[in-house]
């Protein structure tokens, strides 16, 4: 087994996702500490420009360019990854804890019988070996996990776990190819894409969430506007999604999405455990609620006790000005 670290690159509408740059930055840092190489693993079709873009972030870029790999599918991508992991024998393979990562990595880990830690939020050295930080029970407990059995290992990390550092490397591009067959037992009949313009909730640096205190679906327009100004995303609590004011795709919380943006603002959210478990790894939490006893204030760094509808217009203008000054 080599000491190298692989990062599986995810793309969205052709562009490399932010989380992949985060993982490449961490992989390079670790590789630098153990005198090994970081690898960006780029699988797809017509991806030459993307490969060039990755040169600054990784020691080596493995490119697998095949028509059959145009769209992500577990059947084809598992074969490509299996081939590469067997050939290069990396110490670790990093991926993102996204819909794609959660679909691909367990299948791949099972095929190679390699241990996996999913949905991690950190990694560190434990002597010569690595230990992985993983939250349990909605963040009530943190576990540090190691591997046994002396095999290569897989880890998927939550988006926004690491910061991006452009290292100005000049990574070497390696082209690879292998035999890839489609699994004929699955046949995609149609893809319906919605919300294409929206930033992925889990990847957003800024999230402004509305709860029942928003009073009705029409008032979420205010949050959408603020999210737009900040280049972030509007989210919602479970109560709001259950009341069908917002789509399930917007739900932050235990049965929705777990998020860790740089700045989270909760508006008219009481702070049920269900919700806070999905956002308490955010870097900075601001709560706005007219009830000073709302539980959300126990999780917040900063709070404003006031009527949400008098605060929101002022907040929108304030944030707009702050953005313009940058």
């Amino acid at each position: 087994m080599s000491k190298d670290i692989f990062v599986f690159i995810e793309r969205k509408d052709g562009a490399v996702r932010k989380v992949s740059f985060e993982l490449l930055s961490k992989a390079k840092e670790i590789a630098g500490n153990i005198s090994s190489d970081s690898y960006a693993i780029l699988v797809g079709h017509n991806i030459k420009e993307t490969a060039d873009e990755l040169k600054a972030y990784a020691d080596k870029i493995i490119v697998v360019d095949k028509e059959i790999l145009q769209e992500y599918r577990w059947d084809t991508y598992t074969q490509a990854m299996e081939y590469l992991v067997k050939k290069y024998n990396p110490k670790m393979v990093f991926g993102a804890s996204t819909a794609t990562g959660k679909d691909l990595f367990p299948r791949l880990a099972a095929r190679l019988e390699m241990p996996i830690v999913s949905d991690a939020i950190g990694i560190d050295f434990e002597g010569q070996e690595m230990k992985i930080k993983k939250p349990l029970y909605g963040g009530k407990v943190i576990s540090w996990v190691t591997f046994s059995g002396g095999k290569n290992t897989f880890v998927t990390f939550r988006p926004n776990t690491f910061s991006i550092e452009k290292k100005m490397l000049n990574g070497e591009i390696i082209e690879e190819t292998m035999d890839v067959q489609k699994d004929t037992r699955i046949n995609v009949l149609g893809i319906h894409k919605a919300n294409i313009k929206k930033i992925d909730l889990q990847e957003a640096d800024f999230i402004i969430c509305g709860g029942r205190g928003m009073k009705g679906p029409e008032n979420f327009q205010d949050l959408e506007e603020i999210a737009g100004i900040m280049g972030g995303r509007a989210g919602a609590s479970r109560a709001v999604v259950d009341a069908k004011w917002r789509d399930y795709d917007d739900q932050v919380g235990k049965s929705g999405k777990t998020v860790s943006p740089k700045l989270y603002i909760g508006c008219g959210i009481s702070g049920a455990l269900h919700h806070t478990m999905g956002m308490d790894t955010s870097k900075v939490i601001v709560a706005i609620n007219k009830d000073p006893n709302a539980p959300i204030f126990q999780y917040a760094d900063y709070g404003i006790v006031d009527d949400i509808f008098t605060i929101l217009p002022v907040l929108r203008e304030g944030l707009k000005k702050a953005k313009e000054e940058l």
Partner: protein
Amino acid sequence: MKILVFIKQVADTEARILIKSDKTSLEIENKYNMNFFDEFAVEEAIKIKEKSKETLVAVCTYGPKRAIEALRTAIAMGVDQAFLLDNNSLNGDDPLITAKILAGFAKQGGFDFILCGRQAIDDESSNIGAMVAEFLGIPHVSSIMKLDIIDEKKALVESEIEGGRETIEVQLPALFTVQKGMNEPRVPLITGVMKAMKANIPLIDPYSLGLTREMIDTCAAKTNVLYYETPQDRPPVRIIEGNTPEEKVKALITILKEEAKVL
């Protein structure tokens, strides 16, 4: 047709959880439920059974003896059979090993397709579905929102993907992980609860499933908990004071800029 449903018993979100002094084990308050996402899988299987009388629904879990309670909930909802794959003789909690045992059970009992929740709410790993499918050599589809069984050989599913949905035709046998919103899980009727209390739930030894100790214990490559720790507490909230909304917002933005440095 036979539908197999995998469930997990998980600690209630409100349960108190303490780290024991050895730092490698947890003390969990005795409040457990069926995993939130698995309820949708159980409900979907029962709905299919109600439409076609020839269908048998079996539910199983790999876990400790207390997990029998989650199986009883599934029986109360309306499944036909329940099995506990007893983890007493095995140490640790590794997804590869759990998946191997569940796949071993599925292979022995047979099935047309398998349903399970898209992830467990205690570890949020979402490993088991795709892993079991791989060990069984069958296709899987993650996070489905809609399932139509065309005939015994084919299903049409709608699944959630990044920023949308896709429609997929899948040859059976297959495994599907279920997303929230697929259906409305029923609350068991009292007659169901009575039936569940009396139901005989067989305990199955994982080693009776054609798996050796080397495969699922001693020689298996797996993950181990080094230690547990409590998350860092946030300092108490700072309430931003001011006489008007303008003053409060102004003060907040200054803090976010200069102190928190997130603007």
